């Protein structure tokens, strides 16, 4: 009986992962295709990566996107960590229902609605649209993701450490900075990375809130993809995938090491 179960489980996991990875693998392989026709294999080649280096508009869009992602992820990390602390530690304060509603809503809100409403706000305020409006929009979008990540860490956190510090006369702010923050640091860093990746990825909200001179990478890719599949797009997608994979693997290794270190010191938050 157990054996039959495990066969079923193995198959479902294997099929599921194959479904998730085959399309990406195909894309990566075809980015090294020497032929201009994307469906015909013309031998291994790096020519599309070389073509990419000469594509000034694409590079410019990449720089814009990285800038927006870095600024908005940092702002979202501060805001998201604050609201996670507020929601987990302060429990019931006036307006908590509206607050938690506003915190979780962007998580599921269709992007067309968020994008449209932010654009109309910027128009009503008569702000020039460009780098900063997209940054504000992305901060609003990604704050909730940081909140969720940090929150789940705070919930499973051993509060007696904080209480011990406070009982010994440590003021709350100092307790937070010297005890709480170092312990939730992996979650804060993960939240920042998630916000960064989401900002780098967003097409819809950026399309609404951007202005002349601030074309982000997804907007640029999208306008080319609509014209059809090109090997050059395969190449830029492969670079993005490689970057993200490296980032995620490295950060999870780091998180594991810091967790092991904490456990070795004996202050690891055991669930």
């Amino acid at each position, binding site marked *: 009986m157990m054996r039959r179960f495990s066969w079923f489980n193995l198959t479902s996991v294997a099929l599921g992962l194959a479904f998730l990875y085959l*399309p990406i693998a195909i894309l990566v392989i075809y980015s090294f295709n020497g032929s201009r026709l994307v469906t015909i294999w013309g031998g291994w080649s790096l020519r599309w990566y070389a073509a990419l280096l000469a594509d000034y508009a694409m590079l410019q869009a990449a720089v814009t996107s990285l800038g927006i992602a870095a600024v908005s992820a940092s702002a979202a990390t501060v805001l998201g960590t604050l609201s996670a602390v507020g929601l987990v530690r302060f429990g019931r304060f006036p307006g908590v229902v509206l607050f938690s509603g506003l915190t979780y809503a962007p998580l599921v809100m269709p992007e067309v609605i968020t994008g449209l409403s932010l654009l109309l706000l910027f128009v009503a305020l008569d702000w020039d649209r460009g780098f900063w409006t997209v940054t504000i929009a992305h901060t609003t979008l990604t704050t909730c993701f940081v909140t969720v990540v940090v929150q789940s860490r705070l919930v499973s956190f051993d509060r007696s450490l904080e209480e011990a510090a406070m009982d010994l006369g440590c003021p709350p702010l100092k307790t937070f900075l010297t005890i709480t923050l170092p312990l939730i640091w992996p979650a804060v860093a993960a939240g920042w990375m998630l916000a960064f990746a989401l900002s780098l990825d967003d097409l819809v909200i950026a399309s609404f809130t951007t202005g002349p001179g601030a074309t982000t990478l997804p907007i640029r890719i999208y306008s080319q993809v609509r014209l059809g599949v090109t090997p050059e797009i395969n190449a830029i997608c492969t670079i993005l995938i490689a970057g993200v994979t490296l980032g995620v693997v490295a950060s999870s290794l780091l998180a594991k090491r810091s967790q092991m270190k904490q456990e070795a010191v004996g202050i690891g938050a055991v669930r």
Partner: protein
Amino acid sequence: MKQAAPSRRIRARSLVVLIPYLWLVAFFLIPFLIVLKISLSQPAVAQPPYTPTFDLITGWAGFREFVANLSPDNYLSLAADWLYLSSYLKSLQVAAVSTFLLLLIGYALAYGMARAPRRVQPILLMLVMLPFWTSFLIRVYAWINILQRDGLLNQVLLALHLVDEPPAWLATDTAIHIGIVYSYLPFMVLPIYAALEKMDETLLEAAADLGCPPWKTFWLVTVPLSRPGVLAGVLLCFIPIVGEFVIPDLLGGSETLMIGQTLWMEFFTNRDWPLASAVAVVLLLLLVVPIVTYQHIERRRLEAGS
């Protein structure tokens, strides 16, 4: 709870909440009110392209005139035109079908992961998460490669002699469903996995010892215990899928648009901002119940955890 804290601490505390609170009110709540207002306006050839506009300088009289100029015309034209109704219906239908498919595939995958040896579970979890980190746009684009007429799928089908003529995959609802299931799978798997992983396995042993066949144990023990995860996954997928734009735009056809595409078209192509706003308001009303349910679950999950 601890005893009442000194008032200085309360002030410091409220500052912690106040900063993100103000940000969300300014950039999430107020924009919706503006959308609501503009949905009651009329399009105009002006900058901004709608009328009436409200100016604080004109004071109370100006405000009264502004309110008098608001009209529900946009909502009436939404109701009168079959284009919009069919667009909403199509979105709901696509979201329902793909959420169902996601649930089937996602549950099987999550179940397999939760029953895998403890040692490999973190690796499996990371493998499921990884595509979620890579760009949405790239993942949809990857399917264009595969689904186009002379793409890989048709090459394989022809080589295996399963079809004689290469069928058209792109610009069909099938392509939309494939793209959505592919893109949203991690959102379904993760909450279900989290629920299954927490489950006490001795319950299964107890059921088996008492002579309950495995399928019945699954149905009577595992499924009810994973219900919160299933509900979270379903809502986390269903709500954004209804408003999805990128996937139907790149993979779908042009005969019936999903509502996200209709909104996009009204806004960018027709430049009818008031009508686009009305489309958004109605879409939001459709989604209010699922969104509120989702928030409720999230809060309960948090309170149960702490």
